[in-house]
């Protein structure tokens, strides 16, 4: 067979003409790279991951409970005030603020502002973009408040001793969980 097609290939069969050349595609349809915005079935893709996370959390809690006992001090005695007198650790930042500001500011205005501010945040931060580089101000402001709050919590929890004076936690430990 000497006859060739326009692209140099040989005709498929005698008595048939090549009418067109199409790019190669799988018969089943277009294959494409999985896109991050594609939809995946929740079962199994999400549920399997959630199950693994759930088991990991349960294992962490069960193991922590083997090695660390929940504290139980002496029976409550209203006439015997411990020194330092500590709030639960998640209120340690507030307690630390109370030692610096008037109680009305540290005990009422700041917590109210934090809760109201957090609730109103999506209505303040109305910039629609989700890219971190396009929302530097919001990220910076949130991060600063968060770091400040964490720092105050750590100070109030671990760095305060009798009479709410500064102690180094590796010298005297006064944190309570």
């Amino acid at each position, binding site marked *: 067979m000497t006859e060739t097609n326009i692209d140099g290939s040989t005709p498929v069969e005698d008595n048939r003409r090549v009418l067109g050349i199409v790019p190669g595609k799988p018969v089943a349809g277009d294959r494409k790279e*999985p896109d991050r915005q594609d939809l995946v079935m929740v079962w199994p893709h999400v549920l399997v991951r959630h199950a693994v996370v759930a088991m990991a959390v349960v294992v962490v809690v069960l193991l922590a409970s083997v090695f660390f006992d929940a504290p139980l001090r002496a029976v409550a005695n209203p006439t015997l005030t411990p020194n330092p007198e500590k709030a639960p650790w998640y209120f340690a930042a507030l307690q630390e603020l109370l030692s610096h500001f008037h109680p009305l500011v540290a005990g009422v205005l700041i917590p109210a502002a934090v809760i109201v501010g957090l609730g109103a945040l999506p209505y303040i931060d109305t910039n629609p973009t989700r890219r971190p580089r396009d929302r530097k101000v919001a990220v910076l402001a949130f991060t600063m408040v968060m770091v400040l709050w964490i720092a105050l919590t750590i100070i109030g929890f671990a760095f305060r001793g009798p009479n709410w004076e500064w102690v180094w936690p590796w010298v005297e430990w006064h944190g309570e969980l």
Partner: protein
Amino acid sequence: MDLKDRVEDEGNAAGTDGSFDPGRADPGALARFRRTEFGRSIFRTPGRLTPRDRAAGHWANFFLHIYPVKMRRAEAGFRYSWYLGVISTVLLGSLVVSGIYLMFFYVPTPNQAYVNIQTLQVDVRFGQYIRNVHRWSAHLMVLAVAAHMARVFYRGAHKKPRQFNWVIGVVLLVLTLLLSFTGYLLPWDQLAFWAVTVGSEMAGYVPFVGNEVRETLLGGSSVGAPTLLRFYVLHVVVLPLLLGVVLMIHLWRWRKDSMLDLDPSGRANDSKGDDGD
């Protein structure tokens, strides 16, 4: 290979979830079990022949109704959420289970509470251990909920149209803190008593109504027997019920919004994600 098997394989091959498994000949023990009379009576749904049937199977499952049928691939992975919402929910489950066990051995009066805890730790089978589980789950849940909030912020997942689910999340954070705080008093030891004394003093600083708020909370001018009873009722009935209801709204909205197709600049790509399921 009968017709049913063949259709099932084709259904998988064309699956929209990327699970392409043309060479699967054996449907597996579970699939065979599902086809028995007994298996059909358990799982209710007939064999899942096509992707549409698999979605229908999800729909028909009571336990999966809190999940959407499909999710964005990007939102299913660890990097997106660090699974902090899942972690918080699992810790809540751990707290409910361990808390119910503790309730069997606890009476909220100053005379009995502390003795109950001592008895629990020494005489009750797994008493100390379950108390540890409850304690550490509670602390971890406060951490997980706070971290969840921070992660959602950095992800920008609180933005339009999800704003109000963030507000519901703030309510859940406050409820979590209140649950932890009310539970803190129940062992009735020095740690509990004085932590709650300090914590409730803050309520007294509210202008005009501070003392009324504080005395309503404590049931008196200082922490005492009425406080213990009030905190107990809040801790085991009122706050868990509230948290449960608000959490259901939170998850319902999460599911409804899970199909949103938003590009990073915040514009909706098209309208196919309008209805979550």
